[in-house]
């Protein structure tokens, strides 16, 4: 069943049809939400709210890319959730270190292909990058996540962020430079980053 037919069925009140769309897009939505918010619980809450909102606003969908339309709702839900959490800070149920980092991340435990050392390196790298992404202002962060992490083109990012194309271009350049400068602090702590790059460049 194609996407447009599922959307039409959902508009007719078929919740199962909409849930097929949810299953198709929930990983992407969660990935974007987590990269924008930097918290697993918050990303999960934002995603759930976004899908509920998408179903209730489905009549406002005017064609075009459903993925872009949905991601716009997801990013807006992320902003709402971030503001809500700023007003009412919550305590994470996941065990945390003194620095506020999760002691164990279930996602990394699942990856049984990597050795413990590699897992540790990956965790450190992931944390460093996420730290630098989270340090960006929301408007820069969203564009960076959409283009560099989700691999979208400028037009799609412009549509999702509801920002002119020129602004997308400008924000993306600045966001990349800021992340690059931020990662300088982790250069010595994470030498594997260079090794990975060197390997990449050699190919």
């Amino acid at each position, binding site marked *: 069943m194609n996407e447009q037919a599922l959307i039409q069925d959902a508009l007719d009140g078929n*919740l199962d049809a*909409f*849930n097929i769309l*949810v*299953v198709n897009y*929930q*990983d992407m*939505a*969660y*990935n974007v939400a*987590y*990269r924008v918010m930097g918290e*697993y619980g918050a990303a*999960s809450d934002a*995603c*759930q709210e976004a*899908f*509920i909102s998408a*179903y*209730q606003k489905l009549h406002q969908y005017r064609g075009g890319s459903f993925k872009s339309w949905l991601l716009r709702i997801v990013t807006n839900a992320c902003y709402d959730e971030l503001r809500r959490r700023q007003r009412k800070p919550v305590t994470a149920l996941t065990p945390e270190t003194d620095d506020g980092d999760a002691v164990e991340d*279930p*996602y990394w435990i699942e990856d049984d292909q990597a050795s413990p050392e590699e897992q540790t390196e*990956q965790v450190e790298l*992931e944390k460093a*990058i996420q730290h630098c*992404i989270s340090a960006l202002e929301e408007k820069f962060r969203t564009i*960076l996540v959409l*283009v*560099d*992490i989700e*691999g979208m*083109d*400028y037009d799609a990012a412009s549509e999702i962020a509801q920002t002119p194309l020129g602004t997308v*271009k*400008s924000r*993306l*350049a*600045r966001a*990349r*430079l800021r*992340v*690059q400068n931020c*990662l300088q602090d982790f250069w010595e702590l994470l030498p594997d*980053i260079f090794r*990975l*790059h060197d390997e*990449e460049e050699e190919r």
Partner: protein
Amino acid sequence: MNISQRVTVLEQLSAFLDGQLKETEKQQIEKRLAQETKLKEIYEGLRKTKLLLSRLPRLRAPRSFTLTPEMVTVRAPRRKSPFYTSLRWATSIAATLLVVLFGVEYILGGSLYGRSMVSSEQAADGIAQQDETTLALEAPEYKNADPEPLIIWGAPGIGGGGAAKNLEENAATIPEETEEELPSAEGLSDGPTDFGFMIERLIPKILDGPSGENTIRRLLE
């Protein structure tokens, strides 16, 4: 190179990295990258950053976000009553006017207040004068009346110790229909002093008159 130029170059390098430049711009950047080492370093930094970000693992949803009918029950928006809306508008307007008033008052340095006080006094005088005029107009029979009181306290023969001359003069100011009912001055002067009797006779006449209310007010004054 100033900040603006550096920002422009940075944006061009970033767009070049994503293949978003026009052909002419692309050729210009390629030429500069071949010649300028510094520009090449910046470009390499951007390229490595993009590579790092693209290598981030894609997270899977920790649970299913599929919806249940309970989740999508339409939350009916709370309708505000028209009274609440109008009250809110009225409050807003009142608050705005108050702020404007205080602002004007502050700007004029209190001169407005002084002026308004003077105006109030003038208005009060005007009202008092108007009242007097109205009273006079409403009681034409008293227009030319002697300002002295109607009842003479102390007149000889009627109690109160007044002079007989005054009594005669005042008797002229009393309306004729009332005068007819009143005992003569002579009778009064000769008869026993009975002030209560006179009041009993006089008051109903006054009250029954066309301008009884005004007469009472004059008496009270």
